[in-house]
């Protein structure tokens, strides 16, 4: 298993504002799997993603990625963990505004010992001609492609995507999902996608529902369809 979580608990606040967001989550995701986590607003899906990504501390339980326990790691060790293992894709792209496309990708290339070739990635993502543009000169879809390139350049073992199509129209969303599909196939990257979109689950291997801080459904999709065939995006 690539990601194994046991009895993960996470809360915020104290006294009257105390909220138990994750109440004992258990799950496991295989290497190379595309996994979708779905749930309503406030169900705890983004918190779960942050805990897997080492962006937030956990109260108790265990989070193992590629066999390594990340619960309790100090901030420097967590930085190393993210550096060596993870790629992130966000809903609002989060590109560095004063760096152009190539330089935004270089930010993450700098972190990897065996990074992918930026030009090859730009070709794969159809961004070659936009390499010297700044984020504000790009459409939403182009910005998300740039964000994907940035996440992939260090060839991460695990790609965490938080609503990757949340800010895009349906055509662009489909393009992005096709890209993710291709990346998964080409680089065997494990992907965890947090989304509200009900259609995306049809293209992935593994579907997890979370409700009120607990896993309510967890199953493998035996009838997955290509991203190009997805409807209602």
């Amino acid at each position, binding site marked *: 298993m690539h990601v194994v979580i046991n009895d993960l608990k996470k809360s915020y606040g104290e006294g009257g504002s105390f909220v138990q967001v994750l109440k004992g989550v258990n799950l496991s995701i295989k290497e190379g799997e595309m996994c979708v986590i779905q749930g309503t607003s406030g169900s705890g899906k983004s918190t779960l993603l942050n805990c897997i*990504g080492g962006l937030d501390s956990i109260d108790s339980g265990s989070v193992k990625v590629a066999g390594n326990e990340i619960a309790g790691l100090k901030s420097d060790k967590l930085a190393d963990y993210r550096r060596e293992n993870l790629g992130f894709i966000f809903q609002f792209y989060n590109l560095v505004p004063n760096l152009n496309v190539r330089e935004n990708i270089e930010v993450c290339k700098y972190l990897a010992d065996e990074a992918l070739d930026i030009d090859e990635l730009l070709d794969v993502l159809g961004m070659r001609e936009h390499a010297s543009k700044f984020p504000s000169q790009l459409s939403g879809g182009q910005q998300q492609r740039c964000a994907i390139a940035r996440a992939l350049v260090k060839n991460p073992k695990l790609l965490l995507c938080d609503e990757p199509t949340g800010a895009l129209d349906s055509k662009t969303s489909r393009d992005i999902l096709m890209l993710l599909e291709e990346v998964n196939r080409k680089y065997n990257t494990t992907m965890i996608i947090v989304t509200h979109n009900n259609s995306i689950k049809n293209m992935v291997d593994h579907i997890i529902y979370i409700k009120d801080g607990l896993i309510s459904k967890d199953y493998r999709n035996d009838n997955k369809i290509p991203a190009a065939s997805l409807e209602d995006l």
Partner: protein
Amino acid sequence: MMRVLFKRALRDLKHNAARYAALLLLIIISIFVVFGMVGAANTIIKQTATKDEEANLEDGQFAVFEALSDERIKELEASGLIIEKSFSVEYDANGGDILRMFKIRQKNNLILLISGELPETKREAVLERRYAEDNDLEVGDSIDIGGENFTICGIGTTPDYNSVLRNMSDTVVDSEIFGTVFVTDEGYESMLQIASGVMAEEYLYSYRLGEGITDEDVYDLLSGETIEYMGQNIPNLTEFIPVEKNLRVDTASDDIEINRSAGIVAGIMLVVLFSYVISVFIVHSIDSDSEIIGALYSMGVSRKNLTASYVMVPVIVTFLGGLIGSLIGIFTPLGIEYQMQNCLNYYSCPKMDIQIPAYLYFYGLVMPPLVACVVNVLVIRKRLKRTPLSLLRNEQKAIKGRDINLGKLSFINKFRIRQQLREIRSGLTVVFGLFISLLVAMLGIYVYIYCDSVRDETASTTRYEYMYSLKYAPDAVPEGGYEAMAEPLTKPFMKYDFDVTLLGVTEDNPFFDIDKLSEAPDEVIASSSFVEKYRLEKGDSFSISGKNDGKSYSFKIADVVDYTPSMMLFADIDTVREVFDEPAGNYNVVYSDHELKNIDQNMLYSTLTRDDIVKNGRVFFDQMTDLIILLCSMSAAIFATVLYLMMKTMLDRSSFNIALVKIFGFRDKEIKKMYLDGNFVIIVGGVLLSLPITKLILDFIYPRFMVANVGIGLIPRFSPGLYLMIMAIVTILYLIINKALLGRIRRAVPAQVLKNRE
């Protein structure tokens, strides 16, 4: 709506407490320094004028070889003058000091008492303020003057000794060893009878001009008179000084005038600085609140209400800063009082009431909030010209220069350059703040080097132990002494006339570092103090006037020798005698490396020892130490505050990006390199740019305005080590602030930042 916006503003204040506290500190420092400098200068200038009038300050004074007869005085008075004898005798006092004794004045230069009363009996005396202070003497104490015991009945000042210089040619005042004392007519006469002065009685008269008579008229009336002396007719007038040329009068207000100008200029520069700092803040606030503003704006909140909500906190903070700075300036010993004390510790000024000009209140209380308001309104108006949708999307204009092709630079370097371009406004503010603080620091360092050089060079270039000025020269030069012929000359600099001595010396005189005396009558060897005052060089020609006869002389500088205590021109003694029609063999000064016991005291005009001269040289340093410390600490405080504010703003603006790169796995040290360390290049560039500019500014200002009234010239020389020291101090301050801000990077929680963003 306004109530809600007001709450938002208060929460902004609370949330950004450290930033506003630093801004508050910057304004307090700025206002209090300007208040102190300008308020003190204004008080001294205005009060000196008032007190001069109260004390009937003379219009001029003259000294004569033989006292004028009563008839002659009446004749002069009939010409429209109010004349008063201001005779004096110097006595040894208080175990080794010199006190110059006068009678109580009735007409001119009246005593302004600070404490006590005027004397009534012959062994009561009023002591000059500075001497009393430096010697811890108070009303009721006793003091030995010329071997007689006097009771101090009062302490006061006279306007003709605002600067208590013993001789007009003295470089500095040393009130520890010299002062003036005023006694009754009986007391003065009885001292003449029973005590021996250190030099003969000086016949000096002060005058005030009546209707229709000028200083030139008075000079004309006096200059023609001659007396017979040693078989020769010589002019009776030995000295004529109109008040505006008198280096003892109103020197405090002359000296502090530069502080007023400097204070006003500093005030303007500091206002520009903190306006810029505020504008950086507000741009940052508006940009980070863009979505909130857009939401409120789109819901119909008026531009006016939004502006008011953003203007409120900076206006309140700047008003408080101005108020606190003004109050510190007026009411605490750190402000006006401190700045005045620097002056009062040197000059003999009367009691003064603090007098603050109306524009200073405007500067301290109105201008900071006004500037904050105007800057904020302008910035906000510009931002609010955007559509609500544009604000909601937080669309940002392209940053100029960001499309610069950075070629094959390494990633980190490329990133740093992009970051600095993005933060160009903050970077420029840091450079500007650095320039202002370096200007203040360089002034402090300039004062330090000047005073230090005067002290050291005075000691190293004074080689004789005793200098005897003679009234009458014996035929034979006293054994062990080297004779010289001193002729008093005068040369103007700015609005002052300075004494320059043409000293005729013999070839064997060992006390001046002269290789070869020129025999040409128009060639002199000039002291370094002379050439550096008038910015002359070897080979230059200049003209100079005789102090007594007003004749003009032209000389060429054949060589320059190191000599600092006073301005001197050296020539062959026979040539000087010839040029000034002195009898062959005559001399009026004797130098020696030991005390000469065989000199007849009646022939002496005065005796000056090396210890006196060296002590004089040290006075500058002692007087200026506090000012040097104040200037350097102010400079460091301004720099550190501006640097902290701007670096923190840069970090705040980049907080999301920092969180982002943290998410990607960058370590804190790498983030520091990317976001903070680029500032060091800006700072080094700022120092390299500012140092030569500030040095040039001070090279121009310092000799012309700061020490224009000092009777010597000395160009302070900055060693390379000093520049390195400045760079080291700036670096240390930078590193401290960098270290403090690194904590903020460490504390940034990526998930929280992402959540806030969403």
